[in-house]
């Protein structure tokens, strides 16, 4: 960690903010990744004609980093969790974000921007619980 990662963090964060702004201004939609992805695996939640933009957003979400990797020569993704832990974590993240109506993007970026009390509370809860989980798994177990 050095000063540069803070600047690239701020810059990347602003790009995320601009992307969410475009989605709201042009399409009238909240950029919540769990909602966008979850809508693709939820037959009951699908409302007419909304599948194509969802698929396109998800495709873009993969294509953006692919372009970045091509430009800078690689993506730093270091996974320390074991496969069984990843599978359990994936289930919890998938089910939990749908039950709680959002994740880091929908609640953390878009919901807080709308000053939604639900989003502010949800963000505080998932950050607090995640920090506690890391504390227990790294320092106690």
């Amino acid at each position: 960690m050095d000063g540069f990662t803070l600047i690239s963090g701020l810059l990347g964060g602003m790009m995320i903010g601009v992307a969410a702004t475009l989605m709201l201004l042009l399409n009238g939609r909240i950029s919540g990744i769990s909602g966008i992805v979850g809508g693709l695996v939820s037959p009951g939640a699908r409302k007419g004609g909304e599948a194509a933009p969802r698929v396109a957003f998800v495709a873009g979400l993969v294509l953006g980093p692919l372009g970045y990797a091509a430009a800078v020569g690689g993506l730093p993704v270091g996974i320390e969790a074991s496969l069984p832990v990843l599978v359990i974590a994936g289930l919890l993240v998938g089910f939990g974000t749908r039950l709680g109506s959002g994740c880091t993007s929908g609640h953390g970026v878009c919901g807080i921007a709308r000053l939604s009390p639900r989003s502010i509370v949800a963000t505080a809860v998932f950050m607090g619980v995640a920090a506690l989980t890391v504390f227990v798994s790294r320092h106690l177990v």
Partner: protein
Amino acid sequence: MTKTIVALFSGALFGLGLAVSGMMDPRKVIGFLDVAGDWDPTLAFVMGGALLVTLPAFRLILRRPRPIFADGFALPTKNALDRRLIGGAALFGVGWGLSGFCPGPAVAALATGLTPVLAFVASMLAGMAVYAWFFDLPRPQGAVGFRERLLGRPVER
């Protein structure tokens, strides 16, 4: 069609932002969550950078009668701080802390083609499908409870 192009472009910019910010790397995320360890504040700068844009921009945009390419804004309508919100956020927090992945960076990290990423995303989709199966499917006639939902038919009492 226009909405699809907007979504593709926004998704790509969102993904690029995740890559530039370093948030696709679970080590950086866990470095932020590990407040008792060698704390890495980058994630706060990423959220701060995003909110620097969305806080003022959303305020201005939501004054408009409608978005540019759609008939209306599709905004969340719930406002209760209920058990589902808190419980869901807590379950998500456990999964996030265990893996360092939340949904956006996990999907974006599919770009690496790494097997653990594929496993996490497949598992996340399964978790979302389980939720949809319990809560999104239309209820069978007269059914209300968990057992009815599980069996897909009314239960004799």
